[in-house]
Protein backbone atom coordinates (compact mmCIF):
# COMPACT_ATOMS: atom_id res chain seq x y z
CA UNK A 1 0.00 0.00 0.00
CA UNK A 2 1.57 3.27 -1.11
CA UNK A 3 -0.37 6.43 -1.70
CA UNK A 4 0.14 10.14 -2.24
CA UNK A 5 -2.28 12.48 -0.50
CA UNK A 6 -3.30 15.57 -2.45
CA UNK A 7 -6.16 16.77 -0.23
CA UNK A 8 -6.36 20.32 -1.59
CA UNK A 9 -10.16 20.17 -1.76
CA UNK A 10 -10.10 20.65 -5.51
CA UNK A 11 -12.50 18.96 -7.87
CA UNK A 12 -11.13 16.28 -10.21
CA UNK A 13 -11.58 17.16 -13.87
CA UNK A 14 -12.37 13.50 -14.54
CA UNK A 15 -15.52 11.61 -13.67
CA UNK A 16 -15.02 9.19 -10.82
CA UNK A 17 -16.77 6.42 -12.79
CA UNK A 18 -13.89 6.52 -15.27
CA UNK A 19 -11.62 5.20 -12.55
CA UNK A 20 -13.68 2.02 -12.74
CA UNK A 21 -13.89 1.99 -16.53
CA UNK A 22 -10.14 2.60 -16.99
CA UNK A 23 -9.24 -0.22 -14.63
CA UNK A 24 -11.65 -2.59 -16.37
CA UNK A 25 -10.37 -1.68 -19.84
CA UNK A 26 -6.82 -2.46 -18.76
CA UNK A 27 -7.75 -5.73 -17.08
CA UNK A 28 -10.04 -6.98 -19.88
CA UNK A 29 -7.17 -6.62 -22.33
CA UNK A 30 -5.34 -9.52 -20.70
CA UNK A 31 -8.02 -11.23 -18.62
CA UNK A 32 -10.51 -12.80 -21.00
CA UNK A 33 -12.46 -14.23 -18.05
CA UNK A 34 -13.37 -10.75 -16.83
CA UNK A 35 -17.02 -9.80 -17.45
CA UNK A 36 -19.06 -6.61 -16.99
CA UNK A 37 -22.86 -6.76 -16.81
CA UNK A 38 -24.95 -3.60 -16.80
CA UNK A 39 -28.66 -2.94 -16.35
CA UNK A 40 -29.44 -0.29 -18.96
CA UNK A 41 -27.19 2.20 -17.19
CA UNK A 42 -24.12 1.98 -19.41
CA UNK A 43 -24.73 5.55 -20.50
CA UNK A 44 -24.62 6.65 -16.87
CA UNK A 45 -21.38 4.96 -15.86
CA UNK A 46 -19.65 5.11 -19.23
CA UNK A 47 -19.32 1.35 -19.65
CA UNK A 48 -20.31 1.74 -23.29
CA UNK A 49 -16.51 1.96 -23.68
CA UNK A 50 -16.20 -1.60 -22.38
CA UNK A 51 -18.93 -2.84 -24.73
CA UNK A 52 -17.17 -1.21 -27.68
CA UNK A 53 -13.71 -2.51 -26.85
CA UNK A 54 -14.71 -5.94 -25.49
CA UNK A 55 -18.17 -6.90 -26.82
CA UNK A 56 -17.63 -10.55 -25.91
CA UNK A 57 -17.05 -9.66 -22.26
CA UNK A 58 -19.66 -6.93 -21.74
CA UNK A 59 -23.40 -7.55 -21.54
CA UNK A 60 -26.44 -5.38 -21.09
CA UNK A 61 -29.17 -7.17 -19.15
CA UNK A 62 -31.73 -4.43 -19.68
CA UNK A 63 -33.92 -3.09 -16.91
CA UNK A 64 -34.11 -6.43 -15.10
CA UNK A 65 -31.76 -6.29 -12.12
CA UNK A 66 -32.84 -9.48 -10.38
CA UNK A 67 -32.12 -11.57 -13.44
CA UNK A 68 -28.89 -9.68 -14.07
CA UNK A 69 -27.57 -10.74 -10.67
CA UNK A 70 -28.65 -14.36 -11.19
CA UNK A 71 -26.95 -14.36 -14.59
CA UNK A 72 -23.80 -12.89 -13.01
CA UNK A 73 -23.69 -15.75 -10.52
CA UNK A 74 -24.31 -18.37 -13.22
CA UNK A 75 -21.52 -16.92 -15.34
CA UNK A 76 -19.20 -16.85 -12.33
CA UNK A 77 -19.92 -20.55 -11.78
CA UNK A 78 -18.56 -21.32 -15.25
CA UNK A 79 -15.17 -19.87 -14.24
CA UNK A 80 -15.65 -16.20 -15.09
CA UNK A 81 -14.98 -13.20 -12.86
CA UNK A 82 -18.02 -10.95 -13.03
CA UNK A 83 -18.60 -7.27 -12.27
CA UNK A 84 -22.17 -6.00 -12.33
CA UNK A 85 -23.38 -2.41 -12.13
CA UNK A 86 -26.56 -0.57 -11.32
CA UNK A 87 -27.44 2.51 -9.31
CA UNK A 88 -26.74 1.79 -5.63
CA UNK A 89 -30.44 1.67 -4.79
CA UNK A 90 -31.12 -1.11 -7.31
CA UNK A 91 -27.73 -2.80 -6.88
CA UNK A 92 -28.67 -3.33 -3.23
CA UNK A 93 -32.42 -3.39 -2.69
CA UNK A 94 -33.59 -4.72 -6.04
CA UNK A 95 -31.14 -7.58 -6.51
CA UNK A 96 -30.42 -8.48 -2.92
CA UNK A 97 -32.03 -11.94 -2.68
CA UNK A 98 -30.08 -12.97 -5.77
CA UNK A 99 -26.88 -11.39 -4.46
CA UNK A 100 -27.27 -13.14 -1.13
CA UNK A 101 -28.01 -16.66 -2.37
CA UNK A 102 -26.83 -17.05 -5.95
CA UNK A 103 -23.56 -15.16 -5.37
CA UNK A 104 -22.81 -14.76 -1.64
CA UNK A 105 -23.97 -18.05 -0.22
CA UNK A 106 -22.76 -19.87 -3.32
CA UNK A 107 -19.26 -18.39 -2.82
CA UNK A 108 -18.98 -17.12 -6.39
CA UNK A 109 -16.82 -14.17 -7.52
CA UNK A 110 -19.41 -11.49 -8.22
CA UNK A 111 -18.43 -7.84 -7.73
CA UNK A 112 -21.25 -5.35 -7.47
CA UNK A 113 -20.76 -1.70 -8.34
CA UNK A 114 -23.42 0.59 -6.87
CA UNK A 115 -23.19 4.09 -8.29
CA UNK A 116 -24.37 7.32 -6.75
CA UNK A 117 -24.63 6.28 -3.12
CA UNK A 118 -26.60 8.33 -0.63
CA UNK A 119 -26.79 12.07 -1.35
CA UNK A 120 -24.85 11.56 -4.61
CA UNK A 121 -28.18 10.50 -6.14
CA UNK A 122 -29.04 14.22 -5.86
CA UNK A 123 -31.58 15.04 -8.59
CA UNK A 124 -32.83 11.44 -8.82
CA UNK A 125 -34.18 12.04 -5.33
CA UNK A 126 -35.55 9.91 -2.53
CA UNK A 127 -36.42 6.85 -4.64
CA UNK A 128 -32.83 6.55 -5.87
CA UNK A 129 -31.00 7.57 -2.70
CA UNK A 130 -29.52 4.52 -0.98
CA UNK A 131 -28.57 5.16 2.62
CA UNK A 132 -28.72 1.42 3.37
CA UNK A 133 -26.93 -0.27 0.44
CA UNK A 134 -23.80 -1.10 2.43
CA UNK A 135 -25.91 -2.39 5.31
CA UNK A 136 -27.49 -4.98 3.05
CA UNK A 137 -24.18 -6.16 1.63
CA UNK A 138 -22.46 -6.11 5.05
CA UNK A 139 -25.13 -8.53 6.28
CA UNK A 140 -23.90 -11.24 3.90
CA UNK A 141 -21.34 -13.49 5.61
CA UNK A 142 -17.79 -13.16 4.23
CA UNK A 143 -18.70 -10.25 1.94
CA UNK A 144 -16.39 -7.32 1.10
CA UNK A 145 -17.90 -3.81 1.24
CA UNK A 146 -16.14 -0.66 0.02
CA UNK A 147 -17.04 3.06 -0.09
CA UNK A 148 -14.67 4.62 -2.59
CA UNK A 149 -13.72 8.31 -2.34
CA UNK A 150 -12.16 9.41 -5.63
CA UNK A 151 -10.89 8.52 -9.08
CA UNK A 152 -7.51 7.15 -8.05
CA UNK A 153 -9.01 5.03 -5.26
CA UNK A 154 -11.79 3.69 -7.47
CA UNK A 155 -9.21 2.73 -10.10
CA UNK A 156 -6.92 0.99 -7.60
CA UNK A 157 -9.66 -0.82 -5.69
CA UNK A 158 -11.40 -2.05 -8.85
CA UNK A 159 -8.21 -3.93 -9.64
CA UNK A 160 -8.10 -5.38 -6.13
CA UNK A 161 -11.76 -6.42 -6.25
CA UNK A 162 -11.14 -8.49 -9.37
CA UNK A 163 -9.11 -10.84 -7.15
CA UNK A 164 -11.76 -11.25 -4.42
CA UNK A 165 -13.04 -14.85 -4.59
CA UNK A 166 -16.57 -14.15 -3.33
CA UNK A 167 -19.25 -11.46 -3.19
CA UNK A 168 -18.12 -7.85 -2.99
CA UNK A 169 -19.83 -4.47 -3.18
CA UNK A 170 -18.26 -1.12 -4.01
CA UNK A 171 -20.28 2.12 -3.98
CA UNK A 172 -18.92 5.09 -5.86
CA UNK A 173 -19.96 8.53 -6.97
CA UNK A 174 -20.29 8.70 -10.76
CA UNK A 175 -19.38 12.29 -11.42
CA UNK A 176 -16.28 14.34 -10.79
CA UNK A 177 -15.59 14.87 -7.12
CA UNK A 178 -12.87 16.23 -4.90
CA UNK A 179 -9.46 14.68 -5.44
CA UNK A 180 -8.04 13.10 -2.34
CA UNK A 181 -5.26 10.96 -3.80
CA UNK A 182 -2.78 11.29 -6.62
CA UNK A 183 -3.00 8.83 -9.51
CA UNK A 184 -0.94 5.73 -8.92
CA UNK A 185 -1.97 5.51 -5.27
CA UNK A 186 -2.46 1.95 -4.10
CA UNK A 187 -4.74 0.54 -1.42
CA UNK A 188 -5.30 -2.74 0.32
CA UNK A 189 -8.80 -4.10 0.89
CA UNK A 190 -9.42 -4.14 4.64
CA UNK A 191 -6.67 -1.67 5.52
CA UNK A 192 -7.61 1.88 6.50
CA UNK A 193 -5.37 4.80 5.54
CA UNK A 194 -4.16 7.27 8.16
CA UNK A 195 -4.15 10.55 6.24
CA UNK A 196 -3.33 12.94 9.08
CA UNK A 197 -1.86 12.04 12.42
CA UNK A 198 -3.28 13.52 15.61
CA UNK A 199 -3.60 13.00 19.34
CA UNK A 200 -6.90 14.46 20.64
CA UNK A 201 -9.53 12.74 18.50
CA UNK A 202 -9.76 10.45 15.45
CA UNK A 203 -12.09 11.08 12.51
CA UNK A 204 -12.90 7.88 10.62
CA UNK A 205 -14.50 8.68 7.28
CA UNK A 206 -15.07 7.17 3.84
CA UNK A 207 -16.33 8.11 0.39
CA UNK A 208 -17.35 11.73 -0.10
CA UNK A 209 -16.86 12.39 3.63
CA UNK A 210 -13.07 11.91 3.43
CA UNK A 211 -12.52 15.38 2.02
CA UNK A 212 -14.88 16.85 4.64
CA UNK A 213 -12.87 15.06 7.32
CA UNK A 214 -9.65 16.59 5.98
CA UNK A 215 -11.25 20.04 6.07
CA UNK A 216 -12.48 19.38 9.61
CA UNK A 217 -8.95 18.47 10.69
CA UNK A 218 -7.70 21.83 9.39
CA UNK A 219 -10.49 23.72 11.19
CA UNK A 220 -9.78 21.84 14.41
CA UNK A 221 -6.04 22.54 14.08
CA UNK A 222 -6.83 26.26 13.85
CA UNK A 223 -8.57 25.88 17.22
CA UNK A 224 -5.60 24.06 18.69
CA UNK A 225 -7.15 20.58 18.50
CA UNK A 226 -5.04 17.75 17.05
CA UNK A 227 -7.20 15.37 15.01
CA UNK A 228 -6.20 12.13 13.34
CA UNK A 229 -7.96 11.36 10.02
CA UNK A 230 -8.48 7.83 8.74
CA UNK A 231 -9.91 6.97 5.33
CA UNK A 232 -11.77 3.73 6.07
CA UNK A 233 -12.56 2.81 2.45
CA UNK A 234 -13.28 -0.80 3.40
CA UNK A 235 -16.21 -1.20 5.77
CA UNK A 236 -15.94 -4.95 5.72
CA UNK A 237 -13.64 -6.60 6.61
CA UNK A 238 -13.13 -3.66 8.95
CA UNK A 239 -9.64 -2.63 10.04
CA UNK A 240 -10.30 -3.19 13.76
CA UNK A 241 -6.61 -2.98 14.61
CA UNK A 242 -6.33 0.57 13.26
CA UNK A 243 -9.54 1.62 15.04
CA UNK A 244 -8.38 0.25 18.39
CA UNK A 245 -4.98 1.90 18.03
CA UNK A 246 -6.71 5.23 17.33
CA UNK A 247 -9.10 4.74 20.25
CA UNK A 248 -6.25 4.03 22.65
CA UNK A 249 -4.00 6.83 21.39
CA UNK A 250 -6.58 9.62 20.91
CA UNK A 251 -9.32 8.55 23.33
CA UNK A 252 -12.24 9.77 21.20
CA UNK A 253 -13.69 8.82 17.80
CA UNK A 254 -15.90 10.52 15.24
CA UNK A 255 -17.23 8.53 12.28
CA UNK A 256 -18.48 10.22 9.11
CA UNK A 257 -20.46 8.47 6.38
CA UNK A 258 -22.94 9.07 3.56
CA UNK A 259 -25.19 6.25 4.89
CA UNK A 260 -27.47 5.44 7.81
CA UNK A 261 -25.29 5.53 10.94
CA UNK A 262 -27.45 2.82 12.52
CA UNK A 263 -26.27 0.14 10.09
CA UNK A 264 -23.13 1.45 8.40
CA UNK A 265 -19.60 2.60 9.18
CA UNK A 266 -20.56 4.24 12.48
CA UNK A 267 -22.27 1.13 13.77
CA UNK A 268 -19.43 -1.10 12.57
CA UNK A 269 -16.87 1.06 14.41
CA UNK A 270 -19.16 1.12 17.43
CA UNK A 271 -19.20 -2.70 17.47
CA UNK A 272 -15.40 -2.79 17.61
CA UNK A 273 -15.22 -0.19 20.39
CA UNK A 274 -18.00 -1.79 22.44
CA UNK A 275 -16.30 -5.15 22.28
CA UNK A 276 -12.75 -4.03 22.99
CA UNK A 277 -12.15 -0.39 23.95
CA UNK A 278 -14.93 1.94 25.07
CA UNK A 279 -14.19 5.57 24.24
CA UNK A 280 -16.57 8.45 23.39
CA UNK A 281 -17.97 8.00 19.87
CA UNK A 282 -19.93 10.54 17.82
CA UNK A 283 -21.43 9.52 14.50
CA UNK A 284 -21.96 11.83 11.52
CA UNK A 285 -24.26 10.42 8.84
CA UNK A 286 -27.91 9.83 8.08
CA UNK A 287 -29.96 9.68 11.25
CA UNK A 288 -32.95 7.43 10.49
CA UNK A 289 -34.17 9.52 7.56
CA UNK A 290 -35.22 8.86 3.97
CA UNK A 291 -33.66 10.62 1.00
CA UNK A 292 -34.94 13.67 -0.84
CA UNK A 293 -34.28 15.51 -4.07
CA UNK A 294 -31.83 18.39 -4.42
CA UNK A 295 -28.28 19.43 -5.31
CA UNK A 296 -25.61 17.38 -3.57
CA UNK A 297 -24.17 20.32 -1.60
CA UNK A 298 -27.66 21.25 -0.38
CA UNK A 299 -28.26 17.64 0.70
CA UNK A 300 -24.92 17.47 2.52
CA UNK A 301 -26.01 20.50 4.47
CA UNK A 302 -29.50 19.09 5.12
CA UNK A 303 -28.14 15.80 6.48
CA UNK A 304 -25.30 17.47 8.40
CA UNK A 305 -22.50 15.87 6.43
CA UNK A 306 -20.19 18.90 6.29
CA UNK A 307 -16.79 19.65 7.84
CA UNK A 308 -18.46 21.98 10.37
CA UNK A 309 -20.66 19.10 11.54
CA UNK A 310 -17.60 16.88 11.96
CA UNK A 311 -15.82 19.64 13.91
CA UNK A 312 -18.79 19.96 16.28
CA UNK A 313 -18.94 16.21 16.73
CA UNK A 314 -15.20 16.07 17.46
CA UNK A 315 -15.49 18.74 20.12
CA UNK A 316 -18.40 16.90 21.68
CA UNK A 317 -16.49 13.61 21.71
CA UNK A 318 -13.45 15.26 23.29
CA UNK A 319 -15.64 16.89 25.96
CA UNK A 320 -17.05 13.48 26.84
CA UNK A 321 -13.62 12.03 27.64
CA UNK A 322 -13.24 11.11 31.29
CA UNK A 323 -11.41 13.89 33.00
Amino acid at each position, binding site marked *: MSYTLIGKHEKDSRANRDGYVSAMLEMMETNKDLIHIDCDLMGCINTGKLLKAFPGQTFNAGIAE*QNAMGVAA*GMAATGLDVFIHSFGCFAARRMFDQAF*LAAGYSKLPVHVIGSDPGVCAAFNGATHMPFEDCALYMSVPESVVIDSCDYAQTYALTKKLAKVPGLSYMRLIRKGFTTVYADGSDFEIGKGVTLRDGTDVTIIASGILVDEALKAEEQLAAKGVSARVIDMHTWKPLDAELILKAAKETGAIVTAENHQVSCGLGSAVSNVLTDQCLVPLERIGIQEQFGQVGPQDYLMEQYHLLAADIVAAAEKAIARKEK
Partner: protein
Amino acid sequence: MNKQKLHDLRVFAAEIRLETLKIIGSRGFGHVGGSMSMADAMAVLYGDVMNIDPKNPRWEDRDWFVLSKGHGGPVMYATLGLKGYYPMESAYTLNQPGTDFPSHTDRRKTVGVDLTTGSLGQGMSEAVGAALGSKVKGRTNHVFVAVGDGECDEGEVWEAAQFAAHYKLDNLVCLVDNNKRQLDGAVADVMSHGKGIGAKFDAFGWHVIDVQDGNDVEQISDAIAEAYTVKGQPTCLILNTVKGKGATFAEPSGAHSSQPTKEQWDEAIAASEAQLAAIRAEQ
Protein backbone atom coordinates in the same frame (compact mmCIF):
# COMPACT_ATOMS: atom_id res chain seq x y z
CA MET B 1 -35.19 -44.64 -30.06
CA ASN B 2 -34.39 -48.35 -29.98
CA LYS B 3 -36.38 -50.63 -27.69
CA GLN B 4 -33.49 -51.51 -25.41
CA LYS B 5 -32.67 -47.87 -24.75
CA LEU B 6 -36.32 -47.10 -24.09
CA HIS B 7 -36.55 -50.00 -21.68
CA ASP B 8 -33.40 -48.92 -19.87
CA LEU B 9 -34.74 -45.39 -19.43
CA ARG B 10 -38.07 -46.62 -18.10
CA VAL B 11 -36.22 -48.83 -15.62
CA PHE B 12 -34.01 -45.90 -14.63
CA ALA B 13 -37.07 -43.68 -14.08
CA ALA B 14 -38.63 -46.37 -11.86
CA GLU B 15 -35.38 -46.67 -9.91
CA ILE B 16 -35.30 -42.90 -9.45
CA ARG B 17 -38.91 -42.97 -8.15
CA LEU B 18 -38.12 -45.74 -5.65
CA GLU B 19 -34.98 -44.01 -4.40
CA THR B 20 -36.77 -40.65 -4.18
CA LEU B 21 -39.37 -42.25 -1.93
CA LYS B 22 -36.69 -43.91 0.19
CA ILE B 23 -34.80 -40.63 0.55
CA ILE B 24 -37.83 -38.61 1.63
CA GLY B 25 -39.11 -41.59 3.64
CA SER B 26 -35.89 -41.60 5.65
CA ARG B 27 -37.04 -38.31 7.18
CA GLY B 28 -40.76 -39.08 6.95
CA PHE B 29 -41.83 -35.87 5.26
CA GLY B 30 -40.89 -33.68 2.32
CA HIS B 31 -41.64 -32.44 -1.17
CA VAL B 32 -42.85 -35.69 -2.67
CA GLY B 33 -45.17 -34.18 -5.30
CA GLY B 34 -42.75 -32.10 -7.35
CA SER B 35 -39.97 -34.67 -6.97
CA MET B 36 -41.96 -37.60 -8.35
CA SER B 37 -43.34 -35.64 -11.32
CA MET B 38 -39.75 -35.00 -12.49
CA ALA B 39 -38.44 -38.60 -12.35
CA ASP B 40 -38.88 -39.37 -16.04
CA ALA B 41 -37.20 -36.17 -17.22
CA MET B 42 -34.29 -36.87 -14.83
CA ALA B 43 -34.00 -40.39 -16.26
CA VAL B 44 -33.74 -39.08 -19.82
CA LEU B 45 -31.26 -36.31 -18.92
CA TYR B 46 -28.90 -38.32 -16.73
CA GLY B 47 -29.56 -41.70 -18.34
CA ASP B 48 -29.03 -40.68 -21.93
CA VAL B 49 -28.73 -37.04 -22.95
CA MET B 50 -26.25 -35.36 -20.67
CA ASN B 51 -22.50 -35.47 -21.17
CA ILE B 52 -21.29 -35.92 -17.60
CA ASP B 53 -18.63 -37.67 -15.57
CA PRO B 54 -19.69 -38.68 -12.04
CA LYS B 55 -16.01 -39.16 -11.15
CA ASN B 56 -15.28 -35.58 -12.19
CA PRO B 57 -18.43 -33.66 -11.25
CA ARG B 58 -17.06 -30.19 -12.07
CA TRP B 59 -15.54 -31.29 -15.37
CA GLU B 60 -15.39 -28.05 -17.40
CA ASP B 61 -17.01 -29.32 -20.57
CA ARG B 62 -19.88 -31.12 -18.84
CA ASP B 63 -23.52 -30.46 -19.53
CA TRP B 64 -25.17 -28.59 -16.67
CA PHE B 65 -28.44 -29.25 -14.92
CA VAL B 66 -30.10 -26.67 -12.68
CA LEU B 67 -33.12 -27.64 -10.62
CA SER B 68 -34.59 -24.16 -10.35
CA LYS B 69 -37.56 -25.67 -8.52
CA GLY B 70 -35.05 -26.47 -5.79
CA HIS B 71 -37.54 -28.13 -3.47
CA GLY B 72 -37.41 -31.11 -5.84
CA GLY B 73 -33.97 -31.87 -4.36
CA PRO B 74 -34.75 -35.51 -3.49
CA VAL B 75 -35.34 -36.53 -7.12
CA MET B 76 -31.95 -35.04 -8.00
CA TYR B 77 -30.27 -36.78 -5.06
CA ALA B 78 -31.81 -40.08 -6.18
CA THR B 79 -30.62 -39.56 -9.75
CA LEU B 80 -27.07 -38.52 -8.83
CA GLY B 81 -26.77 -41.37 -6.33
CA LEU B 82 -27.85 -43.93 -8.92
CA LYS B 83 -25.31 -42.45 -11.34
CA GLY B 84 -22.56 -42.99 -8.78
CA TYR B 85 -21.77 -39.43 -7.73
CA TYR B 86 -21.89 -40.70 -4.13
CA PRO B 87 -23.05 -43.83 -2.29
CA MET B 88 -26.86 -43.90 -2.45
CA GLU B 89 -27.14 -44.39 1.31
CA SER B 90 -25.60 -40.99 2.02
CA ALA B 91 -28.70 -39.34 0.54
CA TYR B 92 -30.81 -41.07 3.19
CA THR B 93 -29.52 -38.41 5.57
CA LEU B 94 -31.88 -35.88 3.93
CA ASN B 95 -32.48 -32.95 6.24
CA GLN B 96 -30.73 -34.59 9.18
CA PRO B 97 -28.48 -32.21 11.14
CA GLY B 98 -25.14 -31.78 9.35
CA THR B 99 -26.34 -33.48 6.15
CA ASP B 100 -25.04 -32.74 2.67
CA PHE B 101 -28.56 -33.33 1.35
CA PRO B 102 -30.81 -30.40 2.27
CA SER B 103 -34.40 -29.88 1.08
CA HIS B 104 -33.26 -27.52 -1.67
CA THR B 105 -30.37 -28.21 -4.04
CA ASP B 106 -27.12 -26.59 -2.91
CA ARG B 107 -23.85 -26.47 -4.87
CA ARG B 108 -21.88 -26.05 -1.64
CA LYS B 109 -23.24 -29.24 -0.14
CA THR B 110 -23.99 -31.91 -2.69
CA VAL B 111 -21.57 -33.41 -5.18
CA GLY B 112 -22.98 -33.02 -8.70
CA VAL B 113 -25.20 -30.04 -7.95
CA ASP B 114 -24.11 -27.26 -10.30
CA LEU B 115 -25.95 -24.26 -8.84
CA THR B 116 -27.77 -23.40 -5.63
CA THR B 117 -31.51 -22.92 -5.83
CA GLY B 118 -34.44 -22.59 -3.48
CA SER B 119 -35.50 -18.98 -3.92
CA LEU B 120 -37.82 -19.63 -6.85
CA GLY B 121 -36.96 -18.00 -10.16
CA GLN B 122 -33.27 -17.61 -9.33
CA GLY B 123 -32.21 -20.94 -10.77
CA MET B 124 -33.57 -19.87 -14.13
CA SER B 125 -31.33 -16.78 -14.13
CA GLU B 126 -28.36 -18.79 -12.88
CA ALA B 127 -28.86 -21.34 -15.66
CA VAL B 128 -29.06 -18.56 -18.23
CA GLY B 129 -25.79 -17.22 -16.82
CA ALA B 130 -24.22 -20.67 -17.04
CA ALA B 131 -25.35 -20.96 -20.68
CA LEU B 132 -23.94 -17.53 -21.57
CA GLY B 133 -20.78 -18.20 -19.56
CA SER B 134 -20.29 -21.49 -21.40
CA LYS B 135 -20.49 -19.64 -24.71
CA VAL B 136 -18.02 -16.99 -23.52
CA LYS B 137 -15.69 -19.82 -22.54
CA GLY B 138 -16.04 -21.30 -26.03
CA ARG B 139 -17.59 -24.54 -24.81
CA THR B 140 -20.09 -26.59 -26.80
CA ASN B 141 -22.02 -28.00 -23.84
CA HIS B 142 -25.72 -27.65 -23.02
CA VAL B 143 -27.40 -26.26 -19.93
CA PHE B 144 -30.70 -27.74 -18.77
CA VAL B 145 -32.93 -26.00 -16.27
CA ALA B 146 -36.11 -27.33 -14.68
CA VAL B 147 -38.73 -24.85 -13.47
CA GLY B 148 -42.09 -25.55 -11.92
CA ASP B 149 -45.37 -24.29 -13.36
CA GLY B 150 -46.06 -22.65 -10.00
CA GLU B 151 -42.56 -21.19 -10.09
CA CYS B 152 -43.54 -19.44 -13.32
CA ASP B 153 -45.46 -16.98 -11.09
CA GLU B 154 -42.06 -15.42 -10.38
CA GLY B 155 -41.21 -12.40 -12.53
CA GLU B 156 -37.56 -13.42 -12.55
CA VAL B 157 -38.41 -16.46 -14.70
CA TRP B 158 -39.61 -14.09 -17.41
CA GLU B 159 -36.70 -11.67 -17.03
CA ALA B 160 -34.43 -14.66 -17.56
CA ALA B 161 -36.52 -15.89 -20.50
CA GLN B 162 -36.23 -12.55 -22.29
CA PHE B 163 -32.46 -12.42 -21.63
CA ALA B 164 -31.92 -15.95 -22.98
CA ALA B 165 -33.85 -15.20 -26.17
CA HIS B 166 -32.09 -11.84 -26.65
CA TYR B 167 -28.66 -13.47 -26.41
CA LYS B 168 -29.79 -16.40 -28.63
CA LEU B 169 -28.78 -19.03 -26.08
CA ASP B 170 -29.40 -22.13 -28.17
CA ASN B 171 -27.33 -24.16 -25.70
CA LEU B 172 -30.10 -23.72 -23.11
CA VAL B 173 -33.08 -26.03 -22.67
CA CYS B 174 -35.76 -25.23 -20.12
CA LEU B 175 -38.05 -28.00 -18.88
CA VAL B 176 -41.29 -26.81 -17.33
CA ASP B 177 -42.65 -29.37 -14.87
CA ASN B 178 -46.27 -28.59 -15.69
CA ASN B 179 -47.83 -30.65 -12.89
CA LYS B 180 -50.65 -28.14 -12.43
CA ARG B 181 -50.40 -27.89 -8.67
CA GLN B 182 -48.66 -25.46 -6.36
CA LEU B 183 -48.54 -25.28 -2.58
CA ASP B 184 -51.93 -23.68 -2.06
CA GLY B 185 -53.80 -25.69 -4.67
CA ALA B 186 -54.36 -25.87 -8.42
CA VAL B 187 -52.17 -23.51 -10.44
CA ALA B 188 -55.33 -22.45 -12.31
CA ASP B 189 -56.87 -21.31 -9.01
CA VAL B 190 -53.86 -19.82 -7.22
CA MET B 191 -52.33 -17.85 -10.11
CA SER B 192 -53.30 -18.74 -13.64
CA HIS B 193 -51.02 -18.30 -16.66
CA GLY B 194 -53.18 -16.50 -19.21
CA LYS B 195 -52.75 -18.14 -22.58
CA GLY B 196 -50.49 -20.77 -21.01
CA ILE B 197 -46.85 -21.09 -20.02
CA GLY B 198 -45.91 -22.42 -23.47
CA ALA B 199 -47.59 -19.46 -25.16
CA LYS B 200 -45.66 -17.12 -22.89
CA PHE B 201 -42.29 -18.71 -23.74
CA ASP B 202 -43.25 -18.55 -27.40
CA ALA B 203 -44.04 -14.84 -27.04
CA PHE B 204 -40.64 -14.34 -25.40
CA GLY B 205 -38.94 -15.74 -28.49
CA TRP B 206 -38.28 -19.33 -27.46
CA HIS B 207 -38.77 -22.51 -29.45
CA VAL B 208 -41.52 -24.31 -27.54
CA ILE B 209 -42.32 -28.03 -27.60
CA ASP B 210 -45.45 -29.29 -25.89
CA VAL B 211 -44.71 -32.75 -24.49
CA GLN B 212 -48.15 -34.25 -24.13
CA ASP B 213 -47.12 -36.87 -21.59
CA GLY B 214 -44.27 -35.40 -19.56
CA ASN B 215 -43.94 -38.69 -17.69
CA ASP B 216 -43.13 -40.62 -20.89
CA VAL B 217 -39.39 -41.04 -21.42
CA GLU B 218 -39.78 -41.52 -25.16
CA GLN B 219 -41.70 -38.29 -25.67
CA ILE B 220 -39.17 -36.40 -23.51
CA SER B 221 -36.26 -37.90 -25.47
CA ASP B 222 -37.81 -36.92 -28.79
CA ALA B 223 -38.39 -33.37 -27.58
CA ILE B 224 -34.77 -32.97 -26.44
CA ALA B 225 -33.55 -34.37 -29.75
CA GLU B 226 -35.61 -31.66 -31.47
CA ALA B 227 -34.20 -29.01 -29.10
CA TYR B 228 -30.66 -29.98 -30.18
CA THR B 229 -31.51 -29.09 -33.77
CA VAL B 230 -32.73 -25.57 -32.93
CA LYS B 231 -30.23 -22.81 -33.65
CA GLY B 232 -30.32 -19.18 -32.58
CA GLN B 233 -32.90 -19.49 -29.83
CA PRO B 234 -33.38 -21.38 -26.57
CA THR B 235 -35.89 -24.23 -26.34
CA CYS B 236 -38.62 -24.79 -23.78
CA LEU B 237 -40.23 -28.17 -23.14
CA ILE B 238 -43.65 -28.05 -21.51
CA LEU B 239 -43.77 -31.37 -19.69
CA ASN B 240 -47.37 -32.20 -18.89
CA THR B 241 -46.75 -34.23 -15.77
CA VAL B 242 -48.66 -35.66 -12.83
CA LYS B 243 -47.71 -34.31 -9.42
CA GLY B 244 -46.73 -37.08 -7.02
CA LYS B 245 -46.60 -39.58 -9.92
CA GLY B 246 -45.92 -43.06 -8.56
CA ALA B 247 -46.36 -42.23 -4.86
CA THR B 248 -49.48 -44.02 -3.67
CA PHE B 249 -50.26 -41.48 -0.97
CA ALA B 250 -49.44 -38.36 -3.00
CA GLU B 251 -50.53 -38.98 -6.59
CA PRO B 252 -54.30 -38.97 -5.98
CA SER B 253 -54.24 -35.57 -4.24
CA GLY B 254 -51.30 -34.02 -6.09
CA ALA B 255 -50.01 -32.71 -2.75
CA HIS B 256 -47.04 -30.31 -2.81
CA SER B 257 -45.47 -31.79 0.30
CA SER B 258 -46.48 -34.82 2.33
CA GLN B 259 -46.12 -36.27 5.80
CA PRO B 260 -47.77 -39.68 5.53
CA THR B 261 -47.92 -42.35 8.24
CA LYS B 262 -45.35 -45.15 8.55
CA GLU B 263 -47.87 -47.55 7.03
CA GLN B 264 -48.44 -45.25 4.07
CA TRP B 265 -44.68 -45.01 3.49
CA ASP B 266 -44.32 -48.78 3.62
CA GLU B 267 -47.18 -49.18 1.20
CA ALA B 268 -45.77 -46.57 -1.20
CA ILE B 269 -42.27 -48.06 -1.20
CA ALA B 270 -43.65 -51.58 -1.70
CA ALA B 271 -45.78 -50.34 -4.61
CA SER B 272 -42.77 -48.58 -6.11
CA GLU B 273 -40.65 -51.72 -5.78
CA ALA B 274 -43.39 -53.74 -7.46
CA GLN B 275 -43.61 -51.15 -10.24
CA LEU B 276 -39.85 -51.33 -10.80
CA ALA B 277 -39.95 -55.14 -10.90
CA ALA B 278 -42.83 -55.05 -13.38
CA ILE B 279 -40.99 -52.65 -15.70
CA ARG B 280 -37.80 -54.69 -15.48
CA ALA B 281 -39.80 -57.82 -16.41
CA GLU B 282 -41.34 -56.18 -19.46
CA GLN B 283 -38.45 -56.96 -21.73
